């Protein structure tokens, strides 16, 4: 019989399985993105640290860290749900989930939570390594927490959409290379949008990644390109819209139950 207890156990089991899944291949899912993030940091800070000061009193290397943390967090949150779903679909073992009484909401929460955990874990590892040699203040910890949570959730939901929609690995690769990568690279990780021409500033402000990174950076330095409250609103709105869309998609059984 279905009770609240069986539903909690069901959701927790799927979450645990998703967490174990990425942990089993932590070399690929954690170590690799952490090393990539640190390499970005080493190279860009070495080349530009003495030449650039984006925010007053903030060295460029320190300016770079929040963006790199958030970029890795977002990319890994996306990867977790999307890769899990596309693998399960291609391998055929998605039936083990679809035959269970897990509801679309349970599936959504479990995949989303696992994505957030992986994203935050990777981001936190980069943070820990970075602060061993660069001073990084934390001015507004609640902003850090909220942007990490909402950013990870937003990308986790986007990953579910991509995982459900894609039928092949090359389609998923296209999602990563042509959507996620450009949006994250052009989001102000390496620069302030005030350094861009006005027209490109406008384009950047259409990129939701920009708000996630700018707001997250505010949590560290108390400085940002746009109001952190506005960024928080934009990110929360995107999260709600994407979550709604994802839940509708899971409920309809689109590409899963036919």
């Amino acid at each position, binding site marked *: 019989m279905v009770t609240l207890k069986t539903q909690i156990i*069901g959701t*927790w089991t799927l979450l645990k399985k998703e967490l*174990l899944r990425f942990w089993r291949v932590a070399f690929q899912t954690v170590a690799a993105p952490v090393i990539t993030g640190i390499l970005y940091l080493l190279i860009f800070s070495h080349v530009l640290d003495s030449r650039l000061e984006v925010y007053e009193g903030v060295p460029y290397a320190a300016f770079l860290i929040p963006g790199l943390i958030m970029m890795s967090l977002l990319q890994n949150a996306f990867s977790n749900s999307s890769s899990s779903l596309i693998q399960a679909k291609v391998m055929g073992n998605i039936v083990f989930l*679809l*035959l*269970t*009484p897990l509801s679309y909401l349970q599936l959504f929460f479990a995949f989303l939570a696992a994505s957030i955990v992986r994203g935050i874990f990777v981001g936190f590892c980069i943070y820990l390594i970075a602060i061993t040699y660069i001073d990084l203040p934390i001015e507004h910890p609640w902003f850090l927490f909220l942007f990490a949570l909402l950013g990870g959730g937003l990308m986790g939901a986007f990953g579910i959409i991509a995982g459900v929609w894609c039928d092949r690995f090359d389609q998923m690769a296209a999602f990563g290379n042509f959507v996620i990568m450009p949006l994250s690279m052009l989001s102000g990780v390496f620069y302030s949008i005030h350094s861009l021409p006005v027209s490109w500033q406008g384009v950047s402000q259409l990129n939701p990644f920009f708000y996630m990174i700018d707001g997250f950076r505010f949590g560290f330095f108390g400085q940002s390109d746009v109001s952190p409250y506005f960024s928080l609103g934009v990110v929360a709105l995107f999260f709600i819209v994407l979550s709604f869309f994802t839940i509708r998609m899971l409920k309809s059984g689109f590409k899963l*139950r036919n």
Partner: protein
Amino acid sequence: MKPAIVYKNVKKNYGSVKAVNGISLSIPQGEFFGLLGPNGAGKSTMINMLGGLATPSSGKIDVMGRDVQKDYQEARHSVGIVPQELVFDPFFNVREMLRFQAGYFGKGKENDKWVDEVIDRLDLRDKANTNMRALSGGMKRRALIAQALVHRPPVIVLDEPTAGVDVELRQKLWSFIKDLNKEGHTIVLTTHYLEEAEALCNSVAMLRLGKIVALDTTRNLLKKFSTKNLMLRLNFMAKKALPQSVKNFSYVESDGAFIFQLKKITDIAEITEALKKSKIEIIDMQTVDTDLENVFLKLTGAK
């Protein structure tokens, strides 16, 4: 007692293809039921709709009195489905995978004992801590069956469970499934091995082009379509010299033998007597009973 499974005028269309075309069927609890038919008959589609892997275009399906769409969570608790394809999760070992599967159904640690029992009964103990990738095809098949059983469903559906499985394992699987049936589980089976269906199933539905062409107990079907045949191998003179009294019987020639369709058992004596009178020597003689395969071929028009 409510039926284990009820299909009420169920249809499933894929574009213009009518995979299931208005099937109504009720399977009582405790039954060992066979779903037979050639490829593309609609067997797997029926099972997929039962498990929620596909949605019916129209009609209604109940499992243990629960609608598989409106009350899907309760319905799925009542059914364990063994899929046809050898699918597996490459990240986990057998025991982990079974515990996860039980967990999805809300079963906690208290169920671990049953998981271990399923592992033992399917001879998976030596492989319980082996990654799924490293298992042989037969072992993967056992693990798939175990996965369908971990939440103790009253209804167990096996979609071609012995496809590609060696004889020894097949016997073990059937012995296990028969035990489950004796314990009160309703078993639904699709198979291409008709002798298996004949040996195991109390009743069968035969499908063709998404429709049921026969639905009855296995015994009744065999009885209804039963014909006893007499196969004779005769000396080389027979073809020309077959007496008219023998030619009056319905017969066919196949692979050098004459196969007579008998209406009554005394026909054997009449035929052999007539041949003796005509001095035609009988080299070999055999009677052949109708089996489910003959019924299946007649009803589905398969060759």
